[in-house]
């Protein structure tokens, strides 16, 4: 349809002295739009694959995790590599908004997976290196926003664990220099509180990034409190209840464990 329209216009306007100029602009803009659409598609596919990885990770049977997630990792690798050439040099930041969604979701999956296996937070440098190997740059912003979303996954993980095993999961960290407190185990809630403190102390500045952080900050705070509330229910009423009873985090609203 648009092809016909173009043809008609070209015939009726063949006298316009500006046509060669606009033909040049058309070629440039088409190239830009094509590139932009390729990146948006790749970003969506990376997001979908990352979500599947997260979903698999939240399920029990960690032994299966690495194996069943391989195809999703392959998808991410292929998708990012396919647009890597579109994101080089001048264009690295031109399409930041288009690729950002995929990067954030991938960060969430990578942070969660790293946390479940090592008990530590995947650093920006390591994460950026992983993406750089695929030819895509990771912005500090996408990493931080990924950390916010990651706290939500930790919350779901903690609540599922409390519901199924009746205890807050303990964490064994591979970090050096950790203070071992005698008789006290580090738990997932401790980690969530540390993340909350750090994120609350982070100054995101103004602009779109600041706004994104503000929104995610509320969600993150609610996540920490959900775990605290569930733990409270477990401590106060848990002992009186029969085995297998699950505490409610929020009496009015059921906790969405799978969401």
């Amino acid at each position: 349809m648009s092809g016909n329209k173009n043809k008609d216009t070209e015939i009726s306007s063949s006298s316009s002295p500006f046509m060669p100029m606009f033909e040049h602009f058309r070629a440039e803009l088409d190239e830009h739009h094509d590139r932009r659409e390729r990146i948006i598609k790749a970003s969506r596919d990376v997001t979908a694959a990352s979500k599947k990885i997260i979903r698999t990770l939240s399920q029990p049977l960690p032994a299966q995790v690495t194996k069943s997630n391989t195809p999703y990792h392959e998808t991410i690798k292929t998708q990012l590599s396919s647009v890597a050439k579109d994101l080089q040099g001048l264009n690295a930041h031109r399409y930041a908004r288009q690729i950002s969604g995929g990067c954030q979701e991938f960060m969430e999956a990578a942070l969660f997976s790293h946390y479940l296996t090592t008990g530590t937070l995947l650093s920006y440098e390591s994460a950026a290196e992983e993406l750089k190997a695929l030819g895509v740059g990771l912005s500090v912003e996408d990493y931080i926003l990924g950390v916010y979303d990651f706290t939500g996954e930790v919350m779901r993980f903690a609540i599922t664990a409390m519901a199924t095993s009746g205890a807050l999961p303990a964490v064994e960290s591979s970090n050096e220099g950790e203070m071992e407190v005698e008789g006290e185990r580090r738990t997932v809630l401790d980690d969530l509180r540390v993340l909350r403190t750090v994120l609350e102390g982070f100054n995101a500045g103004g602009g779109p990034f600041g706004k994104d952080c503000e929104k995610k900050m509320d969600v993150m705070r609610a996540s920490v409190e959900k775990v605290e509330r569930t733990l409270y229910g477990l401590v106060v009423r848990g002992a009186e209840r029969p085995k297998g009873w699950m505490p409610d985090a929020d009496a009015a609203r059921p906790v969405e464990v799978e969401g």
Partner: protein
Amino acid sequence: MATNGGAGIIQPGIFEDLQKKIDEDTAVKDALRDIVQNLEKQDRAAQSALSRAHSTTTANMPTVIKAASDHIASEIETVQQLSKVASQHPYYRFNYAWSRQMESVCFSILLCGWLGGFGKTEAGQLLTIEEVGQILQIPVNVKDRDTFHLTIEEYLLSLISLLDELSRLARNSVTLGDYRRPLQISQFIKDVHAGFQILNLKNDSLRKRSDGIKYKVKEVEDVVYDLSLRGLLPKDQ
């Protein structure tokens, strides 16, 4: 519960480093904002000078062009300054900070050129994106290196602003007794409109603004119609 002072999940220093990176960005944004605000001020002065075109006859237009050119000359200096600072960073990382103002500067130049400025001997000429780049002493539509430049989008948006301004000028020319200029403007807007129609625009600001061109075409056509109905069009047409 053990609260072990930040150790545990987070290796010390991770967030301090990230904070430093974000703060550096903020400092760049602040430096750019000062320059861009200056540019905005200068461009207001340029456009204020150019708006006198609506109440100036063709014979007196050179004084308007001269006044506008002086303001544009100081804008060029500021753009040079902006280019120097901006080129130290990835272009598209911060381009939102100046894109609107660069579009506005480009519009002032296009209008001044259309009226007969910048060495154009007669009115009604369109400065190409390359000519605007030469006037501003910056590259245009750069694709092969990461440096400050004028983009096609900025040029096209300012071209639409020019059409808006010309449709107003068509009416005001008639008021001043100039019945030739509306014809010239009508042809110019039609020619540019034809150009925009071959672009495959997506649902972005360029699309939205270019959708309005057809109304400008009609507005000026109406002026020409009014003149022809009353036999006021120049005889040689």
